[in-house]
């Protein structure tokens, strides 16, 4: 599904060049639900942007869903994104002036579907993510964080993409909503066979994902280092979450 080989991405900040990604090679099979972890600034978002076609690699090869992204023009890339990728963000990124349902319909405006058909699919997607019907016409501002993220996930799946990428989707949610969102993503992975790449700081994600990739200073950890990093995350999870409250 996702093949990255020797992908680098540099940013210039003043006189310095920041290596946000340094020769990253990565394979993710179709149908997997994986997490990307690492300290702040380690290049997680940069990697996610590149494999979802939002950003371009400076070096290396990127092939996603059978398409070599490195060769596409900007417009072609936009069309490809609209067809193949669903995006979920930390701050939901809903249009504040559009209702929940209109937000979900937005990506369908790029298709040839008729208006009623767009509406039907948007409502279906909202049902899949479990938003209450009476909330469909509400503006995002009137919804809770958890509800907004559900709407955003509905928007990500409404085009029936092969790949869903989520950048810290639980970062701004309380524990309960975070669990619900993770459960929902896992369900989309199992029932609809979506490939999902999740960037997260949240150790609880470990309960849901099938693999974790660790980034540090733009490089992917491998072998022993990777195992140790995963164990470290497991350890934080080992502490019973409620003991502190008692």
């Amino acid at each position: 599904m996702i093949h990255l080989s020797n992908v680098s991405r540099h940013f210039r900040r003043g006189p310095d060049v920041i290596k946000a990604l340094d020769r990253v090679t990565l394979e993710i099979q179709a149908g997997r639900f994986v997490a990307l972890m690492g300290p702040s600034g380690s290049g997680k978002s940069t990697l996610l942007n590149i494999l979802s076609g939002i950003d371009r690699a400076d070096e290396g090869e990127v092939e996603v869903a059978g398409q070599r992204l490195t060769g596409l023009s900007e417009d072609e890339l936009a069309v490809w994104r609209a067809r193949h990728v669903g995006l979920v963000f930390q701050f939901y990124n809903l249009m504040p002036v559009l209702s929940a349902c209109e937000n979900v319909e937005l990506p369908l405006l790029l298709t040839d579907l008729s208006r009623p058909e767009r509406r039907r699919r948007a409502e279906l997607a909202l049902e899949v993510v479990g938003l209450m019907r009476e909330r469909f016409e509400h503006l995002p501002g009137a919804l809770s964080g958890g509800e907004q993220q559900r709407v955003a996930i509905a928007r990500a799946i409404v085009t029936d993409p092969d790949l869903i990428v989520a950048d810290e989707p639980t970062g701004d949610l309380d524990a309960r909503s975070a669990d619900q969102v993770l459960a929902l993503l896992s369900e989309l992975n199992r029932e609809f066979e979506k490939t999902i790449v999740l960037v997260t700081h949240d150790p609880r994600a470990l309960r849901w994902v099938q693999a974790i990739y660790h980034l540090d200073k733009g490089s992917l950890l491998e072998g022993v280092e990777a195992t140790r990093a995963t164990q470290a995350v497991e350890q934080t999870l080992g502490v019973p979450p409620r003991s502190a409250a008692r």
Partner: protein
Amino acid sequence: MSRAIPLSYTLRSVFQRRTRTALTVAVMALVVLAVTVMLSLVSGIRRTLVETGEADNLIVMRKGATNDGSSMVPIEAYRAVRYFPGIAADPVTGEPLVSPEMVVQPFFYRQDGGRENVLVRGVRPVAFAVHRKVRLVEGRAPRSSSGEAVVGRAVAARYPGLRIGAEMRFGRRAWKVVGILEAGGSSFESEVWVDVNDLWSDANRALYSGLRLTVAADADAAALARRVAADARWALEAKPEIEYYREQADSANFLFSLTVALGVIMGIGASFGAMNTMFAAVRSRVAEIGTLRALGFSRRSILASFLAEALVIALAGCVVGVVLAVGATLAINAALLGVAINLMTFTTATVQLRVSAGNALFALCFSVLLGFAGGFLPASRAARLSPAEALRRRA
């Protein structure tokens, strides 16, 4: 595949920033108001002048004279021209429809202490037959050698004391108002008409400024004009009255240039205001723009969406401005019968304002231009944002 961002998104985004949008609309509206009122004055002047002429009348002046105030026509010339062929006859008296006229431009003193030149036209009774639009709405025509005057409706409106029976002073004597004349909004309404003999004795000379004559229905006006010009005894020329008044529209042309210049200057100011508003809109919606791009909307659709926002603001300003302009012109007309301006030969005339369909269309095009001018840079900045970059900023 380049699909548009829905208009509802554009419209609702505009109305989300209510105060800022309202202020920008207000600025646009003021500019449109100013330009539209000025334009209604320009077209008012043109209309006033065009309506003053009769299609089948000729004006006879000294060769080279640009208006009848600077022209002289000797009495013998009048007597000769009267019997030229091709001139219509008065259906009642059978006399030729030739109106000899003398114009002077004395000062009139307004109530506020200011003074202005008013065109006083010395006429004979035939003038009322030659100038068919001129009607007495009150009173009667001045009698010969009686010191009587009729005043135009617009003059009467500007000088509230000038009613029938009132006395007024100009030249070396007092005149008694015996009638009010109306002429379909034309510049005759801004004149005072007296008996030409009275004007002669007051001015102490006996000659005409010009002649107006009506061409017979079956006659060739051009041939008649040639005949007047060809007479070697007097250096005269004749031209259609309509053409004469059109040439007098210089002040309108000047005012039009002034309006355009003013519109450009104010428009630059207003479009900077709109630009500011739109830049603020783009700044506050960087994350939204990034999201739209990430979802697959093209640069072009972002550009179009933000341009549309600027245009919506400009169009709202246009509608408000034109409505205000219509209200303002109606109020001015109701209060003063119009605007007093120096129309020609330095005499003051009252021009009725009316926002025509053409004026409104001009305002519309002007506003669209302002919207584009104000919206283009912000919209192209929005379109240039890279989605990855834009998404790094929090909504």
